[in-house]
């Protein structure tokens, strides 16, 4: 048992640290949920891609560095410690790309990944529907087979980044006779195509981070089906495990936030009333980092990410909210002012909801990890 980094891994981390120190914008970019910020983030992603830092874990032929999961986690630590921008294409990088690596064709990989890395194509996710939130298998949007492709109809909602994104991915019911998890197909669609209407929805911060997507006889070619038609649920579970599990929430963001909280507490004169909560934020971020190192070791030994990805999500979503609430309490009357802490707090509030609510995750943990008997939902 050790926590040692070998020479190559250390060199990789140092190279990332040096590049980021030189290139991270000194003033934060505007929110990527504004037209101006979206464009600025695309530019940042292009700069990352030119230096091959956009998707370090991808194979070199798609612009990556063939980095190990450990190297990816260390890159993320450096990325957030440097105060680098949030990733405008995170839906693509951390949800769609892993799905494509598992189920996509060579043609799809070569067509989609390079543009994704540069954020030439920014991806929105199109999972939820008005009647299908955590219960995603209740979805009603349809895909009907036609010559050479599929015709989509229906409505998706709470689609992150869809207001400005270029394309979207999600599940559609391709067999109207099938129920629940059966008869679904995983498809990618062009948000500029005929028949697509995108209606932006402002989030709590007032910016259109969500959108509704209406599909009205939208044609999608066969080449944009991922995996076999009707196998969408199985294909999507790859994505779900990535969102709930390791990929979307590396420890780096929480470690950096805990460090900033310590600085905030010190500069506020180390007030007694917040000491325990500040210490707990550091403890939790460190716990999550070490837990992730344990997960990386198991994955490297051939294990798969199972229901413990729900443990993971329950923990970081709670940690993120607590950490930011502690920061706001330290800010006193300034807490209500718009700024990085209030913005981070708003961001953290989504954590216990998306990708399956905390309540769904607890049920998954209880039934699949602890083996408690299944009951009514």
């Amino acid at each position, binding site marked *: 048992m050790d926590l040692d980094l070998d020479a190559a891994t250390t060199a990789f981390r140092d190279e990332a640290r040096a590049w980021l120190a030189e290139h991270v914008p000194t003033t934060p970019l505007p929110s990527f949920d504004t037209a101006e910020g979206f464009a600025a983030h695309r530019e940042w992603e292009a700069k990352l891609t030119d230096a091959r830092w956009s998707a370090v874990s991808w194979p070199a032929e798609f612009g990556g560095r063939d980095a190990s999961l450990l190297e990816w986690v260390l890159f993320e630590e450096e990325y957030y410690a440097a105060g680098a921008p949030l990733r405008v294409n995170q839906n693509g990088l951390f949800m769609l790309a892993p799905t494509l690596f598992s189920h996509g064709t060579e043609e799809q990989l070569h067509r989609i990944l390079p543009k994704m890395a540069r954020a030439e194509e920014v991806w929105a996710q199109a999972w939820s529907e008005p009647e299908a939130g955590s219960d995603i298998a209740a979805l009603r949007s349809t895909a009907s087979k036609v010559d050479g492709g599929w015709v989509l109809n229906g409505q998706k909602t709470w689609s992150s980044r869809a207001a400005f994104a270029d394309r979207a991915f999600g599940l559609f019911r391709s067999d109207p006779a099938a129920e629940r998890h059966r008869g679904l197909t995983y498809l990618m669609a062009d948000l500029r195509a005929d028949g697509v209407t995108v209606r932006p929805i402002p989030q709590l911060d007032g910016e259109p981070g969500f959108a509704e997507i209406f599909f009205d006889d939208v044609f999608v070619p066969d080449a944009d089906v991922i995996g076999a038609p009707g196998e969408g649920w199985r294909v999507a579970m790859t994505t779900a495990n990535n969102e709930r599990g390791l990929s979307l929430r590396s420890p780096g963001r929480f470690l950096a936030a805990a460090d900033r909280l310590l600085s905030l507490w010190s500069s506020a004169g180390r007030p007694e009333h917040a000491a325990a909560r500040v210490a707990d934020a550091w403890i939790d971020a460190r716990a999550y980092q070490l837990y992730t190192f344990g997960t990386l070791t198991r994955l490297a030994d051939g294990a798969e990410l199972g229901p413990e990805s729900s443990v993971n999500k329950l923990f970081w979503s709670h940690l993120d909210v607590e950490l930011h609430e502690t920061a706001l309490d330290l800010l006193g009357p300034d807490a209500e002012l718009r700024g990085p802490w209030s913005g981070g707090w708003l961001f953290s509030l989504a954590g216990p909801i998306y990708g399956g609510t905390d309540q769904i995750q607890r049920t998954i943990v209880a039934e699949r990890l602890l083996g*408690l008997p299944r009951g009514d939902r």
Partner: protein
Amino acid sequence: MKFALSPEQTAFAASLDDLLSTVDGKLWRRLADLGVTGLGVPEHHGGLGADVPDLMVAFEALGFHCVPGAWTDTVAVLPALLDDPILGSVASGEARASVAFGPHVPYALDADLADIRIMVDGSRLRSFTPGDQLSSIDSSRRLFEIVPGADIGPARDAGRAFDLGVLATAAQLLGAGRWLLDTSVAYAGQRRQYGREIGKYQAVKHLLADVVTALELARPLLYGAAVTLSRQDVSAAKVACGNAALLAARTGLQVHGAIGYTAEHPLGARLLRVRALASAWGTAEVHRRRILAAVAP
């Protein structure tokens, strides 16, 4: 990086579990034969000179099985305080220690049975004699007041000794928490009310999901601290293992209901042990302060 128990450590945990599942009156002897008492003793004194993670494996098992006795004092702490041939008889299981340690460990466990009694006073060691016996809520913890005696020289490494006492306590908390969870999950799968197993109710499921989450995230802190031995990691392990075990104890009692509140059910022994250990070797508050002193700019 390989942040996981080795096959040898896993096998050691399994053999400890086997042994401790069939308790008899000669537990100290049997554990000594398995090498537990020699884990922290250097090889030149006849011990195993094992790594700290090995110690944690042993203490997790001791906590899981709620083994009584001054194991922390003898196996984890003493070898860091002394460099003395008497450690040979500790390793062989013939000698037991009782240690009082500054303000955070003011009472001595099993002091009347101990062959070696040491109180740590800053960086110095003194002997002591047992004073009045105190009554712990955990009746298996036989605590004594200490009557300081003569100075017996400098501590080998008082800071490391304290941290090992903290980690051994954290490991026992984690083990006890795991027992409480396993036992409560098993009970929730059997106990029926309103016509079905109580484990089918989401209200019960979600309580237990929170316990496993707390325990699963506390374990890497314990083993991480065992690897780095940094002050902040050691203290983080104590806070997290203590809180996770307290949550497991309270939840376990709630899931069991009245039967868990009885002295005859084994849950009570763990619940009381957890409460006692949560404030032993530094309360959560003490350890949070140590963390902030180490990491806040």
